[in-house]
C-alpha cells in the first residue's frame, strides 16, 4: 500500500506541476530552471540521512557526505542565483501593472 501511495503522490504532484509550469511565461524560463534545480536539491534530505546514520559503514557515510556537498551546492547556489536573476526583471518605469 505504501508503494501505491507513493505512486499517487507522484501522479498528483506531476499533474499539478504540469498545470502550474505551463503557466510560467517564456520570460522566466531560465529562472524556472534554476528554481526547479534548487528545489530538486531536496535530495539533500536523503543525503543527510546517509551522512548522519551512525549505523552505516564509513564508506557509506563518506559517500553520503559527498552527496550532501553536491546537494547543498545546488540548494544554496540555486536559490541565490534564482533570486539574483529575478531581481533584474522589471517593467518600464511608470508603466501600469
Amino acid at each position: 500500500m505504501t508503494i501505491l501511495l507513493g505512486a499517487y503522490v507522484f501522479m498528483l504532484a506531476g499533474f499539478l506541476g504540469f498545470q502550474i509550469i505551463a503557466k510560467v511565461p517564456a520570460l522566466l524560463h531560465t529562472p524556472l530552471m534554476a528554481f526547479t534545480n534548487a528545489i530538486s536539491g531536496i535530495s539533500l534530505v536523503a543525503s543527510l540521512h546517509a551522512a548522519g546514520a551512525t549505523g552505516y559503514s564509513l564508506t557509506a557515510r563518506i559517500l553520503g557526505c559527498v552527496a550532501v556537498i553536491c546537494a547543498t551546492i545546488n540548494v544554496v547556489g540555486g536559490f541565490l542565483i534564482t533570486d539574483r536573476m529575478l531581481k533584474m526583471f522589471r517593467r518600464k518605469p511608470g508603466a501600469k501593472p
Partner: protein
Amino acid sequence: MNALLAFQHEAGEVRFDHIAYLVASFLFLLGLRGLTHPDTARRGTMFAALGMLVAVVGTIWPRPGMSYEYIAVGLAVGTVIGIPMGLKIPMTKMPERIALSHSFGGLAVALVGVVEYLMDKTQGDKFHMGATGFEVMLGALTFTGSIMAFGKLQGILPGKPSTFPFQNFITVGALIVAVAAVVYMIFVPTAGVIFYGMFGLALLLGVLLVLPIGGADMPVVICLLNSYAGLAAAASGFVFDNNVLIICGALDGGSGFILAMLMSKAMNRSFANVLFGAFGSDAVAASAGPAKSTAAVNEATVEEAAEVLKSSSSVIIVPGYGMAVAQAQHAVRDLANLLEKNGARVRYAIHPVAGRMPGHMNVLLAEANVPYDQLFDLDQINDDFANTDSVLVVGANDVVNPAAKNSPGSPIFGMPVFNCDQAKAVFVLKRSMNPGFAGIENELFVHPKTMMVFGDAKQTLTKMTGALKEGH
C-alpha cells in the same frame, strides 16, 4: 527530544520530520506558483527557500542513531562552494551554470542510491531494489551527461555533434542493457557486480547520449537532463518512502519535460530527431540542399545603418546566441535607449530557442535593464514585422532564416522563424559570412532589404550609438 515532538495516532506514529516535509511540500508548490508572474516570482523563491530550510531542519533534528560530523562537513563545504556559484557566475554563463548544477544533482542522487544499496542489500524488498536501481541509473547518466553538456557549452569539447559508426545502435543497446541490469537486480539483489556494472554503464550512457548533440540543440538537452535529475530524485523518494522527495522530483521532472517539449516544438523537430539525429553534423549535405546563393551581399557601414535607424519610428531587435558570446546586451540597451529618446518604438523579439537554454535572452536583456514589457515572444510579435521600419538582428541566425518557410529541402524547414524579411529594412550584425551551426545558408543575409554590418556585435553597437549621438 523526538519523543516529545512525536505524537501517537492510531494508524501509527507521526514524526516531527514528516510534518516538516508536509510543510515544505506546500511551500515548494506555493513557490512554484509564484513563478507564473514576474511580480510574484521573488516572493515564490523565498517561500521555496523557507520550505527547504524547514525540510533540512526537520531531517537533522536530534534523534537517536544520528551524529553530525559528516553532516556538518557536507553542509559547510557545500555552502562555501554554493555561494560563489550563486552570486559570482556571470549571466552570460547561465547555460553552463545550469548544466553543472544538473551534474551535481545527478551525482548526489546516484551516491545516495549506492549508499542505500551498500547498507540494505539483503533486506530490501523487490520494489525498493528496483527504485534504487533506477535512482542510480538516472542519477549517473544525468551526472556524466550534464558534464558533457557543460563541456560543449564551455567550449572544452567540440560543439559540433561527434558521431561514430553504429552510434545510435550502441547507445540504445547500452540503455537496454542498463535497464535489464536493473530488472535483474530486482530478482537477484545480492549481485553486486551487476549493480556496480550498471552504475558504470549508466555513467557511460550519459556520455553517449550527449555526444551526438550539437551546440544549438543544447536547449532541449539541458531541459531533458533537468527532467532526468528530477526523475532520479523522485526515484529516491520511492526508496526512502519520502513524499517530499517524490513531489519535488515530479515537479522538477515535469518542468524539464515541458520545457524540452516547448523547445523541440520551436524547432519543429521531434525528441527522437534531437537526440539521435546528430543535427548539424551533415553540414555538407545540408548546404548542398538549397542552391548556393550567388547573390551579392549588401554591406553597410555603421554610419549608413545609424542614418536609417535614426529615421525609423519603429525598430525590432532580434537577439541570438551571438549577443551572449559578444556580451553585447548592455550595448544593445544603450542603442535602444537612444532610439527611444529619438521617438522610435523599440521592441525585442525573442525566439524560444534563441541562445543555449530556454529564456537565455530574456535574462541577459533583463540584466542590461531592458524592461520586460519590451520583450515579446514569437507569437506576440511576428505579425508586426510587416509594419516595422527597421529590424536589427544581433547574433541570431537560424531563427531569422526564411529558408524555414520557403525551402522544403532545408534541414530547418518548418521551424517557426521571425518574418524579418517583411520589415522595410533589416540590419544583420555578424562577425563574418560564416554560416550558423548547421552550415545552413541564410537567405536573409542576401535579401535585397538586408544590409550586413560586419564586426564584433558589441563594438558595432557602440559605434552605432556614437554615430547616432553625433547626428543629433
